[in-house]
């Protein structure tokens, strides 16, 4: 296995052995979605109208939940010093940690989302596209969140700061994802929205590790 592979495996292992860590995002997602019928009333047409937005915003908040710990643990125990002085470029280290974060928090949300769709009476026609948007979208959330996680290293109350920094950046993927789902439900093609969402992912994949690594280097100075 390569250095990158070893690192992904280690981070997934650490997240899973941390016990609660991995389950928290998923539990938060489910509870957050569940609260809405209590808040807006159980009327099926109302729920169907807001289902896509509720699921997406819940997923977005859930993926932010553990984001402030993405580098913090390694920063505090000195592991980040070792990564920064090791042969694997820091950008690749960041990319590996993002992959691990997505596998542990993003992927379970994607898998759980159709059930949440049924729960909120999301029109059946939209379920496939909902899955697809989350499959493209949750990696964007992990990637963009990582930039914030790199910037807040060493800051006090970093978690709150992270949300303020990153949440506005989640607006574009949210718009395109909801656009795709609504288009599909309305009988139109979701293709342009999905392409734009894919474009955001293509942009975030190379840029986010560079930006996050720059933030980490600053924190280690």
């Amino acid at each position: 296995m390569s250095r990158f592979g070893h690192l992904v495996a280690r981070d997934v292992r650490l997240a899973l052995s941390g016990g609660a860590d991995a389950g928290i995002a998923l539990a938060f997602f489910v509870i957050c979605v569940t609260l809405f019928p209590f808040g807006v009333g159980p009327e099926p047409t109302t729920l169907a109208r807001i289902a896509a937005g509720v699921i997406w915003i819940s997923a977005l908040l859930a993926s932010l939940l553990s984001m402030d710990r993405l580098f913090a643990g390694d920063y505090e125990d000195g592991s980040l010093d070792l990564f920064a002085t090791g042969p694997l470029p820091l950008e690749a280290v960041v990319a590996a940690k993002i992959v691990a974060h997505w596998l542990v928090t993003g992927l379970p949300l994607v898998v759980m989302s159709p059930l949440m769709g049924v729960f909120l009476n999301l029109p059946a026609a939209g379920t496939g596209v909902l899955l697809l948007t989350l499959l493209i979208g949750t990696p964007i959330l992990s990637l963009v969140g990582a930039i914030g996680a790199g910037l807040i290293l060493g800051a006090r109350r970093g978690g709150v700061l992270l949300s303020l920094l990153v949440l506005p950046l989640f607006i574009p993927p949210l718009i395109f994802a909801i656009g795709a789902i609504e288009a599909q439900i309305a009988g139109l093609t979701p293709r342009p929205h999905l392409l734009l969402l894919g474009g955001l992912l293509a942009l975030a994949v190379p840029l986010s590790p560079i930006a996050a690594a720059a933030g980490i280097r600053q924190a280690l100075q």
Partner: protein
Amino acid sequence: MTPDAPTPRLVAEDIDLMRGGRLLLAGVSFRLAPGQALILRGPNGTGKTSLLRLLAGLIKPLAGRLLWDGSPVSEEPDRYRAALAFLGHHDAVKPTERVARTVAFWAAQADPREAEARAVLALDRLGIAHLADTAGRYLSSGQRRRQALARILASPSRLWLLDEPTVGLDTDGVARLERVLTEHLAGGGMAVLSTHQAIRLNGAETLELSPFVPEPLALDA
């Protein structure tokens, strides 16, 4: 330099080091050839840790150059990072990771080939083979230090940068460290270390940092 002296691989030229808006060290110069070790000495707060972090590439010098194999480290940081192993104040111990796994992971980050075998050997040399299956949270501070040293030993790096490696070690631990260091140097390795404790190391040169401090230090009472 006399013609029969070994060619230095690590050269520091007139390095100025700034920390927290204060000039900590000025004009630090030294040369290190294969088989040589340099022991940094100086009172608390002189800048031993900062200098080691600078040598590890974590801090940029205010002025001066660091050369590895004749070319500036700032121009080819990857080649330099592939050759060094860094031990900081923190031991990078994860509470849930078992000792053997942690050491094997870092060995694989240094060089993925036969990392496990090198890790097993290193644990044995540092006298913690019996702790291989122990989780990090159950280690004493001396055992954590030994694990961190095992990580260094398991890497094929030529240059060891050790910040107070003896902290927390008992007499057996220090003896093992001396033995391991001596063998590393005999094999053509190099080491820069800071320590307040007496350490027996044949042929090690001492670099007293006090003369490089530009102004009288205001030491904490």
